[in-house]
């Protein structure tokens, strides 16, 4: 038996928004530690890793490890039936082929439940090694979303360069070149509005804008986003979900073609 009750139902809705653009279907791995999801996008360029800790739920019970393959499009449709204020409970029997979503209004006068068929997904999991990244940039998530949106107009690739002076996002295309440079914030009232750069060595990597734009769908989950880069290593875009976990996106960089070089 699996049951997870989330008081802040809107959180699950936001998570769904953050996932569904990149993934069509994914396996939700439930354990007594919490819910984890790891899936690559169809083109195997990016990887999404979601972690929702058991402590973050109002009620969490997982008798046996369980992997629920879900069609995220269908799940999104069901979650759209829930109000932002609703309490969402996910229920599933052991070895069941369905999952039930229960939406309770805050005053308990409306309870709706939706049953969704599960899928048999044979998804491979990737081992993500612990990496000490050469650069870590923390910036407001809305700022990052804006940068990605703006620069994707210039070209399909974006270069993120991190130096001592700050971080520079640049894109070049037919219409010209766009450069956005963010310097480390000297003094900011709110921590989440700050641009914080931790750098061991300068890094400059090229990434596909379309994936970065998809990552920014998670902007509503967190006020700040953390970018972690190392030379010739996937970029990590991490949105922390308050009190419960995080969603991390890994994006393989574009590497200069050896043949062309």
């Amino acid at each position, binding site marked *: 038996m699996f049951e997870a009750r989330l008081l802040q139902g809107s959180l699950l809705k936001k998570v769904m928004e953050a996932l569904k653009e990149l993934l069509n279907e994914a396996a939700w791995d439930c354990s007594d530690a919490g819910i984890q999801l790891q899936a*690559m996008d169809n*083109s*195997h*360029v*990016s*990887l999404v890793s979601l972690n929702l800790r058991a402590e973050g739920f109002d009620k969490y019970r997982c008798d046996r490890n369980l992997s629920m393959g879900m069609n995220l499009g269908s799940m999104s449709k069901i979650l759209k039936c829930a109000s932002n204020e609703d309490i969402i409970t996910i229920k599933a029997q052991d070895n069941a082929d369905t999952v039930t979503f229960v939406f309770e209004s805050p005053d308990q006068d409306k309870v709706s439940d939706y049953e969704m068929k599960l899928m048999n997904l044979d998804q*491979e*999991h*990737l*081992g*993500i*090694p612990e990496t000490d990244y050469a650069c870590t940039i923390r910036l407001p998530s809305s700022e990052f979303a804006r940068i990605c949106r703006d620069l994707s107009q*210039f*070209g*399909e*690739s*974006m*270069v993120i360069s991190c130096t001592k002076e700050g971080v520079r996002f*640049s*894109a*070049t*295309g*037919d219409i010209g070149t766009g450069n956005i440079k963010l310097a480390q914030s000297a003094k900011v009232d709110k921590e989440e509005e700050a641009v914080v750069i931790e750098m061991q060595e300068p890094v400059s990597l*090229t990434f*596909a804008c379309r994936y970065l734009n998809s990552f920014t769908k998670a902007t509503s989950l967190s006020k700040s986003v953390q970018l972690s880069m190392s030379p010739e*290593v*996937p970029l990590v875009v991490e949105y922390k979900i308050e009190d419960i976990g995080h969603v991390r996106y*890994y*994006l*393989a*960089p*574009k*590497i*200069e*073609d050896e043949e*062309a*070089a």
Partner: protein
Amino acid sequence: MADPSDVDKLLENVEQFVNDENKIVTYEFLSQNCGIHVNLAKTVLERYVEELKKKKKDLLYQVVYSLAGYVGKNIRCLLVKDTNLKETTLKLDKIISLHVYSVQKGKLDTLSLLYNSNLTEFKKSIQQCCSQSGISCPAAKLKPHAELATNNTTEIKKNVEPVKPEHAMLKKEEESLDASSSKSSIHSESHLTIQDPLKAKEKASSKLPAKKTVGKPAIAAFFANQQAIGRVNPVKEEKKEAVEEIKKSVNGKRVVREPSDDESENKDINVDAIKTSKRFKLSEEAKPVKLHETKAKKTVRKAKQASKTSEKTQRKRIQQFSDSESSGDDEEEQDIVLSSPEMPAQMPAPMSEDEDDVLNATVTEPSNNPKRSRKLVTKAYMDKDGFVVTKREYETCEEKEIPEPTPEVKEKEKSKEIPKTDTQASTKHPSPPGKTKQKSITSFFTRK
């Protein structure tokens, strides 16, 4: 002037046409049939009518007069039955011209029938149909197909107005209104009024493009005007010519127009030019007719393109004449009503030309087999008796052409194209200066 013996022979011919063949003999018909100048044809008809009157047989015949005169400042050109001639002449302030237009046995129900009488002759040869004409039109130029095609569609759209049913009795204008005199308005016998040529021209020109430009901002109006002028120009020229011809005919000065070699060489183009003017005249016709024409035109274009490519492979060229017996009936009737006496001679030919192409184009595929299919083909040809016969028959033919894709296939193709554009875009916007290759995430992380 013709030899009296010739005139007698011609009179015999007229007698034969009218009595033996029960034909409506217009002066155009006579001119074409006997190869005489229109003026001589008119004289012969005049003589014939006089003889009928002498024999007091005129009541058995219907004589239609062509009458032109002034009502105030306006010129009126009327086709009047002999019974109404006196009344109508009284209505005119000044008579410019009066001559016999047609003679026939029995009663003429509608003046539109007069057109049919000329039709057969006109069909025979587009080049010859104006050879006996009293009007020459040196300014008439052969227009390229493409130009005409674009002009036709736009002009017709602007000028189409519904025809009132009570105006069924329509009249033709005098000789002055040749095919290019597109300005001629269509009126009933009693109401027909052609204004002073210059005024009419002004009116016509103001009708075409000006309507659209009204209320536009200055610069927009300017450009719209320019566009409209560009479109309407050919018609305007025609109108000018028509106006000049009206003047000439009024003064009794007529120039015999001889068909040039160019005309015969560029038959197709000529045909379209005539069609343009015809359409312009049909401006008061109902929309369905217009649609029919434009559709036909489209199919014509397609067919022409196809015929160009497969010219060598074509087994035979079927010379066609208008399918007056079949679907074209309505259209033709309207043409009859609206056509002017001189230039309509050229009308049937374009139709036949069109049909020739339409014949190729109006192919319906009952079966889906792309390789060998039976097609419903419309064929029109002239039989031994000189009648145009239109036949629809199935022909088995092998097609090398790729069948037109179904909507589903099209969608698939579209969906296929979309990623292509993406990849094109990707090549278009390489952000970094050097070529970069997107790595897969699996090359960085090992599978568990």
